[in-house]
């Protein structure tokens, strides 16, 4: 109980600092999710339309996804240094894979009869993509994006160790000053943030699925 009181005290004493950390965390996440999301969407669409690039592109994405976050951050230091940029680059490289995979799976997993009808009725390739494939794949694509968001919070907090900013900094500082209440305060905040984002995106996913009648 005493410990939790300490944690609460930290929140009360340092709330402007925590707000700042949350702000940083969200900023890093937003930028990197936007980049990974749009890049992944475009790549996913391209490999769905041009199947012969599918395998090599997925292989590269898989490699990035397999590298442990801390290793990726370390590898990026000689290339782009430390700080926010490093965190964003790491999250983008990491986040592209689920986005590409889900986009491609969603676009290619549509009932063949639906595509056949759309083609036979005289849709252009672009019309099939925009009017049929993308709306029907939106549920799967959004699930990928949700994945990227949660991952961005996880990876973003590790990036604090290389000066990336965000709530990971509270944990980092707590460790260096041997202040367990501080590490807990930072960690707990991260958990809440991750769960909230996931919950909100889950709701959005449900809404879209209902709207587009996709599964």
């Amino acid at each position, binding site marked *: 109980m005493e410990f939790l009181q300490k944690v609460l005290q930290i929140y009360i004493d340092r709330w402007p600092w925590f707000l700042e950390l949350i702000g940083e965390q969200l900023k890093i996440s937003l930028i990197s999710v936007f980049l990974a999301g749009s890049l992944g969407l475009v790549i996913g669409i391209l490999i769905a339309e041009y199947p012969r690039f599918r395998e090599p592109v997925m292989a590269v994405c898989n490699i990035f996804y397999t590298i442990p976050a801390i290793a990726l951050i370390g590898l990026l230091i000689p290339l782009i240094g430390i700080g926010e940029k490093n965190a964003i680059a790491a999250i983008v490289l990491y986040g592209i894979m689920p986005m590409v995979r889900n986009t491609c799976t969603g676009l290619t997993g549509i009932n063949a009869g*639906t595509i056949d*009808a759309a083609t036979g*009725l005289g*849709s252009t390739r672009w019309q099939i993509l925009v009017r049929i494939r993308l709306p*029907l794949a939106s549920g799967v694509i959004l699930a990928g994006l949700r994945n990227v968001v949660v991952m961005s919070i996880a990876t973003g907090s590790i990036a604090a160790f290389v000066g990336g900013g965000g709530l990971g900094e509270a944990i980092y500082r707590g460790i260096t000053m041997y202040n367990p209440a501080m590490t807990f305060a930072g960690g707990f905040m991260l958990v809440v943030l991750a769960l909230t984002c996931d919950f909100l995106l889950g709701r959005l996913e449900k809404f879209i699925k209902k709207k587009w009648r996709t599964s």
Partner: protein
Amino acid sequence: MEAAIRFENVTVRYGDHTALDDFTISIREGEFLTIIGRSGCGKTTALRLINGLLTPDEGHVYVRGTDVADSDLIRLRRSIGYAIQDVGLFPHMTVKENVAYVPSLSGMWNKAEKEEKVRPLLEMVGLDPELMKRYPDELSGGQKQRVGIARALAAGPEILLMDEPFGAVDEITRRSLQTEIKQLQNRLHITIVFVTHDIHEAMMLGDRMLVMDAGHVLQLDEPETVRKNPAAPFVRELLRKESEEEG
């Protein structure tokens, strides 16, 4: 009279399998042609050559005198109605949007027009226009088929291609859909090419029926003639089955 659709020595191969073998037929303007045969006989292949979903390995397919190979496929397809077995209704669009799909592709109808244009189409296929705002998953099998036909007819095509369009509905619904498509064709005078594996359906609907086997024409004649003089053992077999079912 110019044939609506003409196949000239068409051969289509899928790897080692020959789906159509030196296939030549002529489909008349305003004719209801049914194509019957066992699965794999090439009937669907023949149908899909007409709107360029498939291209022949050899030979030519002419639609209204123009070689499909030389046609603008997008434009050709928009001028040909197309209805398929599992309907292929777009699940994320309402009945209205589904029916208005082809005209909306070419910007033929504006948004405000849609409703008043879709209404008579739904009535024509025997559907309550109130269904307009429903989604396909809220419709019965028979209703879906009707929406599929309304969609195929929306742009006022002169040719309608149907690939086992009534395959997925129950017997009673199928009978009434058959009666209605026949009446519809009498009224609209369009050319209909209708693929089926049901000999009764082929006989009842077709002005002429084409019996196919292994990529060849076995017989192309009026249903009565086919009934009286089945040209091949395979046709006799189908007819015998039919009479057994009815008997």
